């Protein structure tokens, strides 16, 4: 019975309080409790649980894979060698995608965008991200992230779940499972996908709970009126009407509870009350009419259009304020196989101001210290052109060997740049950070030892970081 809390499908012993906290969006920290309890005496002798520097995460996922050498990873040599063949000594036979593997020529292409050192820290940021550049001193830029995946499906799946293949829980689900919820009226893992659906398809499994219980699925807030599936009462039923009929329902449920003492009935009663509360707590998040103009202005004009990245950034801050543990945004449109110069400009314009606005807003509200903001895509892009360089126009293919992500707040160093790539932004030279290491570090910031957050499924204790991952100490403040 000691294994109960951490053992996959095993049923918990359905004590009353336990059920209420585990099945609902109740307060509670199921797995964390078990991580500590299970290890009991031994755990305290080998090191007490880590202190969390972040209480929550906002992950601004840039789907499609932003080009690192056009945004953060400054590579002037590429401009000098523009048009020349990528040296075989750089590529070292690494695999390419089926989109450019058969090209007869792989010409290098320098970034057409100007780079400057920004802030007191002198962080390199390109002209594409003027707003982000203005908060450069808050950013911990990691130029040496790498992964194995070379295509979007496996790449995004890896970034979200620690495995290239479907079936594992998303990071937000792990955190919900591990840390429980801080707000009993909202799910602890909320997802928002920008409505601009172009680009690579994103699929709901990316925020799924995998083999964790289904209640840890990320809950997607839609831009529509029903921010949560069927949140609103049917036409003709007002909130008071619902309260009244709910009261009768609960009377009936309670009569039955007296007869059966069935603990699932208690849960049922609690869930219906929770649902009723969510009918007001969710709209409270999505209704931004109480935000002053000074705040709205931080996010740019798009903040007024539901479903845009900017609107979702503001919602993210509102959710963070209400104790939502993991807020995952997806912004598509970074997959620039061709026409990169104009497309990336567009993608940057769609996101830059709101991204910086979020950082500033969190800071102004005193929340940046314990809110970890993560920015990045599923991999990087090649320093050679996919297809031909035609005048000023070119494209870049997928590149897993190195790419840039950044983090801010939540206990990471601000104004810090980590990791070094070669002059071609092709290989990591120093301080490589694998996706597993990113995960380990994020968990660490939340006070979780990534090797201890486990779930037993099919007889094995699974982790977000699989059997890999190291906390990157250099990123920690």
């Amino acid at each position: 019975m000691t294994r109960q809390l951490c053992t996959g499908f095993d049923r918990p012993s359905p004590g009353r309080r336990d059920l209420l906290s585990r099945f609902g969006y109740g307060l509670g920290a199921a797995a964390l409790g078990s991580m500590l309890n299970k290890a009991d005496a031994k755990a305290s002798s080998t090191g007490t649980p880590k202190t969390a520097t972040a209480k929550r995460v906002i992950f601004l996922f840039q789907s499609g894979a932003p080009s690192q050498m056009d945004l953060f990873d400054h590579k002037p040599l590429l401009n000098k060698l523009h048009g020349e063949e990528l040296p075989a000594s750089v590529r070292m036979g690494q695999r390419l995608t089926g989109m450019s593997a058969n090209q007869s020529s792989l010409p290098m292409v320098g970034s057409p965008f100007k780079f400057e050192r920004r802030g007191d820290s002198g962080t390199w940021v390109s002209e594409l991200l003027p707003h982000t550049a203005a908060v450069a001193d808050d950013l911990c830029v990691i130029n040496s992230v790498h992964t194995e995946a070379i295509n979007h499906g496996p790449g995004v799946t890896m970034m979200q779940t620690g495995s290239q293949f479907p079936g594992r829980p998303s990071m937000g689900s792990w955190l919900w499972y591990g840390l429980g919820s801080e707000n009993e009226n909202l799910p602890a893992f909320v997802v928002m996908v920008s409505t601009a659906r172009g680009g690579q398809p994103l699929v709901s499994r990316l925020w799924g709970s995998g083999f964790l219980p289904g209640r840890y699925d990320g809950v997607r807030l839609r831009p529509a009126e029903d921010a949560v599936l069927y949140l609103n009462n049917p036409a003709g039923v007002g909130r008071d009407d619902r309260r009244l009929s709910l009261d009768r329902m609960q009377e009936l449920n309670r009569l039955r509870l007296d007869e059966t003492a069935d603990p699932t009935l208690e849960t049922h009663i609690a869930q219906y009350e929770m649902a009723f509360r969510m009918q007001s707590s969710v709209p409270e998040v999505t209704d931004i009419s109480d935000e002053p103009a000074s705040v709205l202005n931080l996010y740019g004009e798009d903040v007024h259009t539901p479903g845009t990245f900017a609107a979702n950034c503001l919602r993210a801050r509102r959710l963070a304020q209400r104790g939502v543990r993991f807020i995952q945004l997806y912004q598509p449109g970074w997959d620039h196989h061709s026409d990169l110069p104009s497309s990336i400009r567009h993608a940057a314009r769609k996101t830059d101001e709101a991204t910086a606005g979020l950082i500033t807003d969190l800071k102004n509200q005193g929340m940046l210290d314990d809110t970890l903001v993560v920015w990045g895509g599923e991999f990087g892009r090649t320093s050679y052109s996919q297809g031909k360089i035609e005048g000023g126009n070119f494209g870049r293919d997928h590149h897993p060997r190195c790419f840039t992500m950044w983090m801010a707040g939540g206990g990471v160093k601000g104004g810090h740049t980590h990791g070094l790539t070669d002059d071609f932004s092709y290989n990591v030279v120093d301080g490589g950070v694998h996706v597993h290491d990113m995960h380990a570090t994020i968990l660490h910031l939340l006070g979780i030892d990534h090797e201890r957050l486990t779930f037993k499924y099919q007889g094995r204790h699974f982790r977000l970081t699989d059997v890999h991952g190291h906390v990157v100490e250099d990123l920690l403040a």
Partner: protein
Amino acid sequence: MSFSRDVRPILSDRCFHCHGPDATNQDSDFRLDTRDHAVADLGGYFGVVPGDVLASELHARIHADDWSQMPPADSNRVLSQAEKDILDRWIEEGAGYEDHWAFEALPKSISVPEAGRLWARNPVDRFVYRKIADAGVGPNREMSRSKWLRRVTFDLTGLPPTLDELDDFNADQSVGAFERAVDRLLSTDACAERLTSEWLDVARYSDSYGYQRDDERFVWPYRDWVIDAFRRNMPYDRFVTWQIAGDLLPDAGEEQKLATAFNRLHSHKKEGGVAVEEFRVEYMADRVHTFGTAFMGITLECTRCHDHKYDPVTMRDYYSLGAFFQNIDERGLISYFTDATPTPSMPLPSAAQKTRLADAADDVAAAERAYSNSVESAGSAFRDWHATEGTGRAPQIVPSTPVAALDFETFGPVTTDEAFEEKHKYDGSRIPKPADSMRSFANPYGQRALTTPANTLVDGPSGKAVRLSGDDAVVLPGVGHYGRHDRFTISLWLRAEEVADRSVIYRRSRGWDDAGSIGYELTLEEGRLSAKMVHFWPGDALCVETVGTLEPDRWTHVTVTYEGSSTAAGFKIYRDGRPAETAVVRDNLTRTITDWRLGYEDLAIGARFRDRGFKNGAVDEFRVFDRALTAGEVAAVFAESDGSALSAVDEQDLFEHFLATLYEPSITAADALTDARRRYNEIYDEVPAIAVMRETEEPKPAYILARGAYDQPTTEVTADTPEFLPAFPADAPRNRLGLARWLTDPDHPLFARVTVNRYWQMLFGRGLVPTSEDFGYQSTPPTHPDLLDWLARDFVDHGYDVKRLLRGMVLSATYRQSADVGTVARDRDPENILLARGSGSRLSAEMIRDSALAVSGLLVGRVGGPPVKPYDLKHGYTPLNVDEGEKLYRRSLYTFWKRTSPAPVMVTMNAVKREVCRVRRETTQSPLQALVLLNGPQFVESGRVYAADLVDRFGPDIDAIAFEVFRRFTSREPSAAELQILTRLVEEQALRFRDDPSSARAILTVGNAAEADIRDRAMTAAVAVLVSSVMNLHESLRTQ
């Protein structure tokens, strides 16, 4: 103390990770997974000395509190004091090992205990009672007849009992009433649908391909096959054998082959640029995992990358099993630009299509006979021609006029009207290019060819030739648009600079793997000429390759002819005017080679979309002919081009030339044959295809893949079953059919146990082995091991009769127990391990929705057919267009299942996503479920339709209405107290709706169902709220 029950779970969970069967990936040589290893001499000391705790290093280590402590502090594995005591005691008692129960052969017989004679209704109860009695308690009371009928009706049909069924059953006090009710339920279509619903999770059934694109696919005939199999109560061993190996059965028919779609229901990749082999391996892996989970209850996933950490399964076992499942003509990527079904596939013609196909096939046969006749009748005409032509000189073969000819002498200009990209935009429109970025080549017979200056001119066999960049094609607009029924010839000079893996010489095709290679093409593969005609490579294609290789840096004249038969024999390759020796690589072309999207319309030379071009290769004198040239004609074309003398022409050459160009009857008959083939092909192309298994003639080589990586093959393996399980039968074929025979052996340790356990789980909410997906060392041990074995043996001995198995379970006294117990009993056994009470499981997603439809009368009972899209699909992550009419009211197993955006109502209610095989759903309750059930239009509509019916029947009699609604949803009569609350609810709501008539109208028009003729809207709306409220009661959502 039992090793299996008490000791091995500890060793497995805390020690095997580093001291278990995965010897190669462990730091320590010490192993605890077998006794031989555990007691081995470790160099003067011993891990385990049987009977001597103090001499055992294991004892010292688990009690140590310094560096030597085991498990080590950083392992996150801890032994409790109780566990340490168990290990010590085990050593003291001799450190005995036992084989794992689930890997031991199923016993031939299991004796039924004597226990519980007065209570038991069948042998199941004897086993259950013994355990209950051993625990010093007794079974719970029986539930009411109504509740029993409710539970068994939901369990066997997925629907609630009707009020009539409840009344009839309650009225039937005669002997055998329960048995008759069960037999009635088992014989319904609804029962077959319910069992199918359960199976679709196991089969990871979905109506879309999965992964990124996740487009719709045609697989529902498989689902209907499953329904039919359950309806006929097909023996389970046969049910499984057909799905694993139906295609390999002697005289396999359409039905047996259709069943094998089971192994193709995994996700298929449709994403540009993926490593194709990576996903082919992934499909093989999915089949292995599914086989392991569904039929054997073992988790093979781990052994893809290393030997199992806990169970005695090795990587060799994994890939040996995989070798059974990969011998099909498949590709790791499905086509983005065409709608081709991934191969192998089989056509599923409708009855009408079958007739039309048979007629068209007769026409083709008749046309072939007519052509043969014309050839036979040509003798005298040929002799006449021969005689006339022969006067004075030998009869001549005059090369035919081509429809296109490129000599590549000079570059010409390109006009704006010509200058376009080969690819089209998504709307089909063309993308202009700067005309001055392009060049042209003259073609005296039609439109000029278009290219770019990246291709250059070099010296060729006659004048100039074109030298190709490998990325830039030479496109010939308007010619070469041939179907598989057409006859045509292409000839050219070519010179390769070096021997490459692969170079595209010419193609008319949308692309390589991204388009399933659709079209026709000539490639050079390691020096061999390869002519292909493809619907979907490799399973639906023709391919002929030269045996000899071309030398690099030498000009060779190549001609490829094709005569329209859709067979490899229809392809001929000539080198320098003479037939080349060729080998047939693929000979199974059944479908269109011309249907694709977004451009690349024309025949082109030297490059293809995302393929390897003819880099630095050169081409000259490119010719296209609108018919299959004869051997003599090919020789003549070569001679003319080469400037050499035409080698001796024999009688046969002349005769063929005569038939093809001069003899009217054979010319007409050949055209008629082409026409008949075209008509046949057109009908066939309309027939839908479903992906199935079809064994290749030779097994593909199989390897252990280092760390599971697709590109790291190591040791070669052959098809075999895991070593720790019974041996593969010596006389069985080493293919999937042999595998099915091995699996369904009456003594197989796992197959029957896993199956009866799954069905027990379906009825009792939890398996006798609670981890129904894992029977290995890490599994939760069976609560009733003897009962499990008895059920399994009984199942096997009675012909794997699923309905007989279910009948026995639901007619047991165990099943009849009430779920309601006092707190004391509940706390004593919170998980109901003893089965000393009934289980009151929550209804499945399908049951909840189907019962709402059934109660309202909206349910459409039709069985089978294409999937449907009810209301909630428009709220999926990828919104889909909702269907209309009766399609909104079909049972939930027919709901369109899109893997990446599954029906949101179903998923909210705990349905699994069906990406991989799952044998268990987990039941959780969440507030999101409450929102769906209270506010979702499917449920609100059901409520208001039922309300209109109630008010119509009962008028203002609220008591009668409340009584019926409650009974309909809970299968019992409300108490007086309950009835009072229910009527109060109606009165309160009616007051509100009377105040606001527009609200009443609003709720009474939710959904697409027509609004009934309603007398009292406010009352009806209030009753609609009543129905919704009762539907949402805890009791309404459970089987008891």
